[in-house]
């Protein structure tokens, strides 16, 4: 385990303007998986998190919108334990090799 290890994050947003909201959703799609309408599950190491935060900052209107980033801890501890879904659930990207 090192400082550069990836963590799981929950990213939720409240964006007033439709077009801005679409752009934020699109940016988050490039980094993580959509869990709910405005909630994303992102797995990122520090470098990617910094870049994500920087792009979100430039996309939103700081006075009207809000984005919440919640650190769920190191990714190495696995994702399945932390997420409990009630009702319709969406899947998140796996951790290992993808054989499709």
């Amino acid at each position, binding site marked *: *385990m*090192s*400082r*550069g*290890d*990836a963590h799981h994050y929950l990213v939720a947003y409240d964006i007033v303007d439709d077009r801005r909201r679409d752009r934020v959703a*699109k*940016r988050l*799609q*490039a*980094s*993580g*998986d959509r869990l709910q309408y405005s909630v994303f599950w992102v*797995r*990122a*190491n*520090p*470098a*990617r*998190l*910094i*870049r994500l*935060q*920087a792009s979100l900052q*430039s996309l939103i209107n700081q006075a009207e919108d809000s984005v919440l980033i919640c650190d769920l801890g190191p*990714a190495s501890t696995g994702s399945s334990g932390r997420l409990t879904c009630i009702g319709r659930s969406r899947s998140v*990207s*796996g*951790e*290992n*090799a*993808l*054989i*499709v």
Partner: protein
Amino acid sequence: MNGARDGDPLPISLVTHHVFCPRRAWLEAAGEKTDTAQMAAGTAAHRATDDPSTGREGVLRGVEVVSERLGVVGRCDTVEIAPDGTAVIVEYKATPVRRRAELTEAMKVQVNLQAAALEEMGYIVSGQYVYFTGHRLRVPVPRTAADRRVAEAAVRATVSTLAARDAPAPLEDDPRCMACSHVGVCLPDERKLEPVRRRIVVADPDTQVLHLTTPGSRASTRSGRLLVHHQGESLASIPLERVQAVVVHGNVDLSGGLLRELLWRGVPVVFTTGTGRVVGWATGASSPNGASRVRQHVASAEGRLDLAREFVVAKISNQATLLRRLGGAPEAVAAIRAAARAAQGAGSLTEVLGFEGEAAAQYFAAFPTMLKGPALGLRTTFASRSRRPAGDPLNAALNYAYALLLGDVLRAVLTAGLDPHAGFLHSSNRNKPALALDLCEEFRAPVADSTVVGAFNNGELSTSDFTSVLGITILRPGGKKALIAAYERRASGTFRHPTFDYTVTWRRAMEIQARLVLGVLDGTQLCYRGIRVR
């Protein structure tokens, strides 16, 4: 000679990095790219606008500066034009708050060069500062005669390093390595080829390897994600930034847009046939270490017996070790070890190849003794190692596993900037990726063979996963997926690297070994040491 040609001005940032560490500058000039939180923070900080002393008129951002006298170019973060028309340089630094807001040698050189260049361009520089964005502190940078001399000497030293034939040695036991963004490609502690005392843990790449195996499926990209569809159904969707590698097995479509995206991100794509033969690979145009590639070709043409010998000795040792651990043929193990010892003293490539052949004959004759449990039945069908065409399940599985290994090794070679084709053991005359095949040798037994034996022995693979077409045995789709899964488990599994005595994944080990070959070619270290598993 690396980086700029004679006469091209040097980037001030390169001189700055040279002050930090000459090898760091060399790696950057050679085109090595890394991505760390430090660098991302620096980029983000430069977009910050919360320095309270700016926001006035007369603040120029991103000012390009040139000094023909010194032969440098650079970019000032900000240049403030004071009311009297003089210029004040402010350089932004994202030094972590936990560290002191102190000027380093490198920072002083950087700002001194910027000031000198700005003056040559006709400005009068009345002040120069570093603004620490984390601490929100502005610190003046001294510009005494001594400081200017140090800066000019730094430029000369950088030119000299880049013009040298050999790469500079890494710093030894230096705390600077702990925070260096290039530690993963520099491998400072590994160059002595001894057990490593301190371990600078390089973070996991935190990415996934994607194997496209469903015939008729199509991979494309949209909104920064990689999508896989088959007959209208979505098979997978993952963010592109989490893709480490793509392997295309057989008849799978890859959209041009996706290929372009992957190449731009430096993710090589390997293509194999449905029966597991590597047919080709796609790699980006930007590749580091061009000068070392030239040396690779020269060395390959001249021949490097030391490298060829080491590849084979490691290969043979690992065959013996696997056979000893899993098989029941102690005489074969002894014979293979004898061949390894003999190969160590071989005086020509022909001799080396001879011992390799002897060991292979013993190894594959005894191979069936490693098959146990559900795999016992396979002992009889495996007559001998026959590459193509594969006449039985074991050979078919080995072919496929070797192709998977070759794909991984190809990626390691390409990432290190080496040419897969110019090798030292395999002949380049046979139009195969000789260096990649050379580097595969030490991994064949511990990674590919052990995967296949393990998969058969614990029932993941069985004869029902194979079918025979015109006398050739091929893997069925289910068997293919099972074998790939087993291989991936092995490749991302860890082991204790015998040379450095630390734990590392097999996949990372392939990258390290590729960089050790590069180190021999660019003069970083004298010899290569293959992985000899204990």
